[in-house]
C-alpha cells in the first residue's frame, strides 16, 4: 500500500490540465500531477506515483548523491578486500 514507484513523464494532457501520461518501463498510465504542479512538471521529469497521483518529483541530483555515497562505500569495501587479499603471506 505504500506502493510508490518512479515513472517518467511522457506528455502533459492538453485537454485535461493536471493530468499527464507517465511511463513505467513501457507501461503507460494517466497520472494526476496537480500535487506537484507548482514545482513545474515537464516531459522527461521523473516522478513518484502512488494510486494514480504524482506525490513528488524525483530529484535526480539527490539520487546521484545517494548513489555516489553508496558507490564510494562500495569502492572502500572493494579496496579493503583487495588489500586483504594482497596482504596474504604464503
Amino acid at each position, binding site marked *: 500500500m*505504500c506502493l510508490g514507484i*518512479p515513472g517518467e513523464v511522457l506528455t502533459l494532457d492538453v485537454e485535461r490540465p493536471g493530468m499527464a501520461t507517465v511511463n513505467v518501463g513501457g507501461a503507460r498510465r494517466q497520472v494526476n500531477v496537480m500535487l*506537484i504542479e507548482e514545482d513545474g512538471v515537464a516531459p522527461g521529469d521523473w516522478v513518484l506515483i502512488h494510486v494514480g497521483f504524482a506525490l*513528488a518529483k524525483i530529484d535526480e541530483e539527490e539520487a546521484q548523491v545517494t548513489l555516489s555515497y553508496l558507490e564510494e*562505500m562500495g569502492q572502500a569495501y572493494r579496496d579493503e578486500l583487495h588489500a586483504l587479499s594482497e596482504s596474504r603471506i604464503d
Partner: protein
Amino acid sequence: MGPGGMRFVDEYRDREKAQALAANIATLVEPGRRYGLMEICGGHTHTIYKHGIEDYLPEEVQLVHGPGCPVCVIPMGRVDDAIWIAEQEGVIMTSFGDLLRVPGARGSFLDAKARGADIQMVYSPLDSLRIARNNPDRRVVFMAIGFETTTPSTAMTVLRAAAEGLENFSVFCNHVTIIPALEAILASPDLHIDGFIGPGHVSTVIGCEPYRFIAEKYGRPFVVAGFEPLDILQAIQMLLLQLRDGRSEVENQYTRVVPWEGNQKALQAIDEVMEPRPTFEWRGLGWIPDSAMRIREKYARFDAERVFDVPAIRVADPPACQCGEVLRGMIKPWECKVFGTACTPETPIGTCMVSSEGACAAYYNFGRFTRLRVRQAGSA
C-alpha cells in the same frame, strides 16, 4: 543499465553495494549489545523480507515490525460496515486489491462478491470516479484506506467529484495518521526500540518535522528511508552511527524523493476535504484520539457514512488472533499461537496475514525459509 532495467529502482538493488554497507554496519555495532530498530511502514516490512535484508545484518541488530500497514490496522467492524454498504441496493463498491480478502465477521469482500455484491477492484480513486461517471444510475462508493501517503489522493478525488457535480459518488473514509500510532508505540512500557526506520512515502506528504518529538522528547534516532534494499540498509547504517555517537536526530535518507517540508499542496487538499475524528479504533492498538480522518460537513454528500445509514457495529477480534501484539512489535509473527496453523495466507484469521505488507504474510511467504535454512545450517 540495459533495456528492461528500471531506473531509480535497479541501482538501489546492487548486491555489491549491499555487502559494502553490511560490512560498514558490522563495524558500528558494539559486540554483545542488542539493538532493536523498528520499521514502521508495511512497505518496508515487505522489502525487508523480499530481499532478505536481515541476512545482511549482524546478530546484534533486530528489526521490529511496526503498525504502518493500513490494511492491517483496520478493525473487523469497519470491514463489516463496508460490506453492509456494498450490499445496499444499486451500490458499486470499489476498493484497492489488498482489501479484497481481509476477513470481517461475515467474511471478506471476496465472499460478499460471491454472494452477489457488486465489488470492483481499482488501482486509483480516480478509477472509482470514472465508474461513477459511467454508471449514473448506480451509487458508487470508494473504500478509502491508507496513511498520509494515500489521503491526499482521496481528497483530490473528492474535490474533482465536487467540481464535476457528481451526485452518485461517495467515500467510506478509513484514512489514519501515523504520528498518533507512533506515540502509542512509544508510550508502551515493554517495548525496547532504539531507533526508527521512518516511512518514506508518508514523509513525502507530511515532511520530516513531525518526527522531531521522537528524537527530542524520547531520545530515539529517526531516519526516513526509501523502499529499495540499499535505502533500508543505508538508513540502518545512519541509525547505528547516531547510536554510536550518542545522537538522537531526525535524518532523511530518501532525499531524492522526500522534501524536508513535505508537500504543502497535498496537506492543503487533505485539510480542505477532511478533519480529524475525535477518536478511531485501531486493530490491536485500541481507540486512539485524533488518529483518523473523516469527511468535512462541507463535503457531506461525498461521505458514505452520511449517505448511508451505516450500522457501525463494533466487532471484537477472534480470541485466537494476536494481530495486535504483532502490530505493536510485542511478538514476532511465528510467536503467534495460530501462525501458520489455523492462520495462513489461504485461511487468514487476522489482517497481518492477509495484507501483502503484513508482517505475518511477509514472514510466511518470504522469511520462513530463510530462518529454517539458517537454523538448519547452524545446527549442522
